[in-house]
């Protein structure tokens, strides 16, 4: 278990200094904006996504208080419609997907044992685009121009005729921002996992977390084009009078639903699959054994990735779908339970045969089993056409989707945060506050969302801003509001825990949980170069297996940002590569792109004039620098 640390410690302090110079950032504001260090960008991503999580949570709290009693007039329909649209849009586009990818941005390079993420400048650009897109949406909302057609913006309601003004335009443009950001990060993660692994980390030795992030990234690449086409067509329908979704002019409003859900359902798995990877990391560490059935786990992840694309129509059973089509989509909706069940059973065996360490991360992970089990079973009900016709678009669905998304993603995320916080900050989160955080969240969650199943069966449709007293939905709604308040309290405790522990937490050391994977084989927090010496991997659990770390890579420059690129299957050393350093251009390009995209909401000419600064900043970004070329040439070795 100590072999790994030697790899890092063997480097002299002079080497550490040289490496820090080669991979570090310049001081000052420009240096801060220019960073391409995946850890700094990753932390910004995580903090920003958490900020949006809190914002969307506040919106949810307002909705819950509005619904707490019948015929309530706390907010009217105009604001309420914006609230639930903003809540859904934020949680899906600005919290869940970016947060999952952000954890990947921070940890995938560490887990696979390399010094930075592939295409690091693109990574910085992806972050700024995401941040600016989110700020645009919230600026619009605060100016009473928040989107109000629901997070899936069905046409024709979201079309030019029934949603006049700019509200839906901001929604559609936000989707553009998040598409760009997610696609870029997906490309980076796939490249990092396939080409930047530490030598010796052949396919069979890739940790499950890295597999999960790779499957997710492929899903992003295949799902996003569908919503790109959809949101672009919607915005051209609205801004320049195309008629993609206007049935009166030969368009089709249901086409929107197909395009949206062909993205929208995989989106659920884009959020869920990374969580499965986090689960595996945490379970393995806190059961003190490798995950049972590693190969089956990998195949389950990949299968989930494929099947996730075959069930989008189960969101549309109430439109006139042909009978045979319905049966097909019912069958696939049920089939996707098999890979998830396999993973759950494998984890169960892992826990059963392990030696359990009940720390906060494990608690969050165990709650996943309970909550996801319920969410999965209600998912089977929604997959059945006749049942779906009753419970579709009711509070039953609201309950189901929160069980799946919070149980399947937010609980594992909290667990992952408690697990990896020591690596990111060098300090432990408080266990005592962590347990309070956990129990309040777990109880609050079930109190808030379980009654919604019953409300849905009693006929309460979703997206209603209030309801008449005589419908008899008042009591359960009040209970749900109490639960939601408990969740808010729990999240507040979490923030307190983080703020306190960053400064005053117990010092963590390199590997406080004695975990098996490479991110724990370096300092906490890691230096800008991640590993002073890139390890050579000899086992799937490199820090647990006596032969797990066979040595380290030599021959890479210390004073230049140089990396080893390895082969896809066996991770054999392939070539050395001089990495791009910090640059302000990604930031400037993001500013130019944002200006173009925001202005195009107001005039199509913005696309014409706005593209000029984008091109100029891109040229600045890619302009070859004499210094880099010379450095690259100096590092060449003739055979």
């Amino acid at each position, binding site marked *: 278990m100590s072999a790994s640390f030697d790899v890092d410690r063997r480097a002299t302090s002079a080497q550490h200094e040289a490496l820090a110079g080669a991979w570090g950032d310049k001081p000052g504001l420009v240096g801060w904006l220019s960073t391409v260090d995946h850890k700094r960008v990753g932390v910004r991503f995580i903090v920003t996504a958490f900020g949006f999580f809190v914002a969307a949570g506040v919106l949810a709290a307002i909705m819950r208080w509005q619904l707490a009693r019948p015929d309530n007039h706390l907010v009217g329909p105009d604001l309420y419609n914006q609230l639930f649209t903003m809540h859904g849009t934020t949680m899906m586009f600005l919290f869940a997907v970016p947060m999952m990818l952000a954890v990947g941005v921070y940890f995938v390079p560490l887990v696979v044992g390399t010094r930075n993420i592939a295409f690091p400048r693109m990574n910085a650009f992806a972050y700024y685009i995401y941040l600016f897109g989110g700020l645009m949406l919230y600026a619009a909302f605060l100016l009473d121009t928040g989107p109000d057609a629901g997070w899936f913006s069905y046409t024709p309601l979201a079309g030019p005729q029934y949603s006049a003004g700019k509200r839906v335009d901001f929604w559609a443009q936000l989707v553009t921002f998040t598409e760009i950001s997610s696609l870029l990060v997906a490309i980076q993660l796939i490249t990092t996992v396939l080409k930047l692994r530490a030598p010796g980390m052949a396919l069979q030795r890739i940790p499950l977390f890295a597999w999960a992030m790779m499957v997710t990234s492929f899903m992003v690449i295949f799902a996003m084009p569908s919503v790109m086409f959809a949101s672009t067509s919607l915005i051209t329908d609205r801004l320049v009078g195309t008629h993609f979704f206007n049935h009166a002019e030969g368009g089709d409003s249901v086409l929107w639903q197909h395009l949206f859900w062909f993205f929208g359902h995989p989106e659920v798995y884009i959020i869920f699959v990374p969580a499965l990877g986090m689960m595996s990391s945490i379970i393995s560490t806190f059961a003190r054994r490798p995950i049972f059935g590693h190969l089956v786990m990998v195949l389950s992840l990949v299968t989930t990735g494929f099947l996730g694309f075959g069930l989008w129509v189960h969101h549309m059973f109430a439109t006139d779908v042909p009978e045979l089509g319905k*049966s097909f989509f019912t069958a696939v909706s049920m089939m996707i339970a098999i890979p998830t069940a396999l993973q759950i059973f494998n984890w169960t065996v892992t826990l059963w045969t392990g030696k359990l360490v009940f720390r906060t991360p494990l608690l969050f992970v165990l709650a996943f089993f309970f909550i996801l089990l319920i969410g999965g079973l209600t998912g089977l009900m929604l997959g059945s056409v006749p049942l779906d016709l009753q419970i579709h678009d009711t509070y039953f669905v609201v309950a189901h989707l929160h069980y799946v998304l919070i149980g399947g993603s937010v609980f594992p995320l909290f667990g992952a945060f408690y697990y990896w916080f020591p690596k990111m900050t060098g300090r432990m989160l408080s266990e005592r506050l962590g347990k309070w955080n956990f129990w309040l969240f777990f109880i609050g969650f079930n109190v808030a969302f379980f009654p919604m199943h019953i409300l849905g069966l009693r006929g309460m449709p979703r997206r209603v801003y209030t309801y008449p007293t005589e419908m008899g939905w008042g009591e359960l709604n009040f209970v749900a509001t109490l639960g939601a308040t408990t969740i808010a309290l729990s999240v507040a405790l979490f923030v307190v825990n983080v703020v306190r522990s960053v400064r005053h937490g117990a010092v963590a050391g390199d590997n406080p949980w004695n975990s098996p994977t490479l991110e724990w084989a370096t300092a906490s927090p890691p230096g800008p170069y991640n590993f002073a010496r890139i390890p050579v991997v000899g086992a799937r659990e490199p820090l647990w297996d006596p032969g797990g770390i066979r040595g380290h890579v030599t021959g890479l420059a210390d004073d230049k940002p140089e990396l080893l690129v390895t082969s896809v299957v066996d991770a054999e050393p392939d070539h050395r590569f001089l990495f791009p350093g910090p640059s302000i251009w990604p930031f400037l390009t993001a500013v130019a792109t944002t200006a173009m995209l925001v202005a195009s909401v107001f005039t199509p000419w913005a696309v014409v004039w706005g593209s000029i600064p984008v091109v100029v900043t891109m040229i600045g970004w890619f302009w070859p620098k004499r210094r880099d070329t010379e450095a690259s040439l100096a590092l060449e070795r003739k055979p």
Partner: protein
Amino acid sequence: MATQIPALADRAGWTLQHALSPAGPQAAQIHDLWQFTLWLCVLVGGVVFAAFAWALWRAQRGTEDTPPIDVAHATEQRGVRVVAAAILVVVVGLFALVTASVMTDRALASLPRANPLTIELTGHQWWWEARYEDRDPSRTFSTANELHVPVGRPVLVKLLSGDVIHSFWVPRLHGKADLIPGRTNTIQFRADEAGVYRGQCAEFCGYQHAFMAFLVVADAPDEYERWAERQRGSAIAPSSDAEKRGQQVFLQGTCVMCHAVQGTDANARFGPDLTHVGGRQTIAAGTLPNQPQHLAHWIVDPQAVKPGVNMPPNRLAAADLDALVAYLTSLK
């Protein structure tokens, strides 16, 4: 009217829209499937959760410093058998669910549909326009927000939309079917018990999605025929002075820009047909009970009742308002 909506303050009101209290064969089929699915899921979920809890309870405890377990081969083989058996159970369970679901779907499709009552229902932001079809065109008629159907006879509803997507949903009779602009969707149901079944738009359709409700009133067949016959006729001529004055207010004011009353010059189609509005149990698409004071409130200030609704406020002199309400109430 024989079948009355349960007094709106009735505590038992929650069954109005209860998906698990079926009143017709379609809803009953779905209810049966629900029972089967629910209990199968509870069973399988319970077993999985119990196994999980047992595994946690049986597992040894460790600390961060516990050296990682070198997993013995035999234990792993046992694990393989356990997982394989469990997944087999899951697959069998899923097959049962798919089969039950598809069979219910087929059963729903093969329910008797001879001699149906055919209604063309058009969704509008935020009300329902119903046209009762008949082979004889002179016997068709229009109404709004309240469907009367005969007990025991299949009802075929053709679903259209005048603007955005809505969804027709009367939980006690059947599941949902969307009303999609440019398409004709259909849904078929049958009410086997006389009663009032509340329904509500289930697809988000804008500001007043929350108050786009309607009633399905199932009457005994002869009762239904009497109702239909009344609907086929023109509006009752005003009898009292107040009603006559009310008709003048109606015809000379802005009401006629949107509403129709058969037998008068008012024949606009933008808002609900008011020919027999006095006979309906609710106004504003299931929002308020149809009582004079609510009607007056609705006419004067519809935005206070349903913010965003497409009906403008009508500032009428008190006497005119009373007359108008008297007239509309008389249109049984």
